[in-house]
């Protein structure tokens, strides 16, 4: 099982000091957090994509490429990539490029985005959200798996003889997860393709997660990709930990009370009961997290949100230390002991290359290119 963190890249005032970090400061903080994630032994770092304040992460592949260069083992992912408003051609190009730079340590999570205004900024309409997700993703897959694509659809200009470069590393595109809180169509999409399904599992009651995952598993089996319990499931989670649970609650409460999304509403205690939020000791986080398996089955990826609501970098790094030293090693062992042998691990580049029968050089050389002189080579093949 993979463990990691996901961030939405919000720039939020620290309510205990009244201080708001600059963009420059917060961007550097997230880079530090990503490197620290590898250092403490986590497996995955996932970064969100947003195009409006208070978020900075409009350009996730740029950030992830930097992280790739500074790490050696960490799997890089997104939380999420906007499949609705990004041109699928640009996603195909950007993430194949990132895949090469990161030696394959890349996967993506597709999402539709939760803000209406973002759609018109990119020439789209939120009312077409599901249709955009369906059409754009179908094109993205073709761009990664077919060297030359002729395509016509509803939401972008047609393509004639188009080749997306670079081609996916070793001829194998990045693994894709689809994220949705409550749209069965997206779980259906993930099941149809045999892709992963990720439920963000934070800020919402567990029943949403349970129903969506149940549906995805059933449909995954329907489409013939394997048994329902072999479908690839990822979950989010939100934690804040201190050695003593009372200290954790006292320290987190001022952040919770005024946090974006849920602040000024339910109490920390109510929200902890109604959603998977866990504020307490490492042992409490371990127990709660192990309990997720009771309602989603054996799953492959657990990501934690630990850096939002204005928490200072120092605190976030302490949270990472606790995760790495006290929580994840226990979870790794416990989950592994519970998982039956026929349930697969989360796909990685290596496992996908092996499943494809080995790496292939998928480079497409221009057939009549007078600059590179590849004409001969192509004819000789």
């Amino acid at each position: 099982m993979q463990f990691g963190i996901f961030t939405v890249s919000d720039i939020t005032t620290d309510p205990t000091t009244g201080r708001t970090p600059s963009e420059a400061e917060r961007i550097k903080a997230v880079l530090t957090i990503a490197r620290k994630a590898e250092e403490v032994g986590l497996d995955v770092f996932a970064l969100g994509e947003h195009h409006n304040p208070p978020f900075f992460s409009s350009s996730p592949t740029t950030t992830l490429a930097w992280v790739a260069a500074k790490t050696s083992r960490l799997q890089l992912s997104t939380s999420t990539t906007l499949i609705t408003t990004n041109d699928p051609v640009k996603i195909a190009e950007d993430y194949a490029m990132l895949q090469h730079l990161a030696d394959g340590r890349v996967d993506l999570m597709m999402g539709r985005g939760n803000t209406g205004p973002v759609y018109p900024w990119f020439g789209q309409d939120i009312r077409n959200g599901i249709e955009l997700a369906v059409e754009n993703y179908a094109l993205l897959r073709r761009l990664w798996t077919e060297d030359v694509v002729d395509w016509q659809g509803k939401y972008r200009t047609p393509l004639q003889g188009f080749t997306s470069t670079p081609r996916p590393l070793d001829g194998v595109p990045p693994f894709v997860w689809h994220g949705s809180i409550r749209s069965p169509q997206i779980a259906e999409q993930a099941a149809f393709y045999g892709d992963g399904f990720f439920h963000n599992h934070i800020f919402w009651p567990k029943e949403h997660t349970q129903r969506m995952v149940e549906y995805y598993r059933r449909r995954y089996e329907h489409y013939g990709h394997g048994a329902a319990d072999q479908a690839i499931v990822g979950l989010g989670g939100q934690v804040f930990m201190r050695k003593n649970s009372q200290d954790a609650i006292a320290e987190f409460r001022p952040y919770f009370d005024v946090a974006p999304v849920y602040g000024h509403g339910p109490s920390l205690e109510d929200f902890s009961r109604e959603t998977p939020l866990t504020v307490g000791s490492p042992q409490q986080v371990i127990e709660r997290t192990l309990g997720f398996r009771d309602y989603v089955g054996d799953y492959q990826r657990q990501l934690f949100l630990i850096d939002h609501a204005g928490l200072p970098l120092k605190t976030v790094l302490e949270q990472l230390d606790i995760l790495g030293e006290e929580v994840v090693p226990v979870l790794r062992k416990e989950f592994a002991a519970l998982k039956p042998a026929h349930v697969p691990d989360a796909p990685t580049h290596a496992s996908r290359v092996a499943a494809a029968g080995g790496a292939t050089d998928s480079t497409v050389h221009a057939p009549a290119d007078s600059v590179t002189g590849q004409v001969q080579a192509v004819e000789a093949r």
Partner: protein
Amino acid sequence: MTTRTLAVVSAGLGVPSSTRLLADRLTASTVDALRERGVPATVEVVELRQHARSLADNLLTGFPDEGLRGAVDAVVGADGLIAVTPIFSASYSGLFKTFFDVLDKDALAGKPVLMGATAGTARHSLALEHAMRPLFAYLRATVAPTAVFAASEDWAGANTGDPALTGRVRRAAEELADLVAGRPPTAPVDPFADPTTSFEDLLRG
């Protein structure tokens, strides 16, 4: 005959509340009218006052907490709805509106609804027609033609109250009973049932 369920939403704030009193009159009369049509009915009352904080939380978090979830499920799953609010500032109360704001927009589509309202004077009575009826029209509910308004003076007099009010209650209850008895019981909609259109169809757009 299948037993039908009536949900009663009362937005009264006082204890006791004249809004709840009107809701109870409408409910008792509707149960009687259904019984006369050979339809047994059960009743579930939702006092919004008890969910006031949860409703505010729901606006912020986007989901109902456990207690409010029970109330929402009772209303959405009912075969008929009796909705009664006090009139504040020329319209339904904010608490009343908030409850209908947190329902899915299709949750009440086709549902038989009987509307009632209370206020200090009869000068507020058309708020039912000018404010509350458009709300339920937007939600595509099937609203009984008679809406019942009770002002302070309607409660005056003997235990039975104003005979005119009793008559309006009876007429409205008959209308709701006809609507409820005339349609099949509400079947729960499962958004996670296997889809009727295939993903291939979705792909073809």
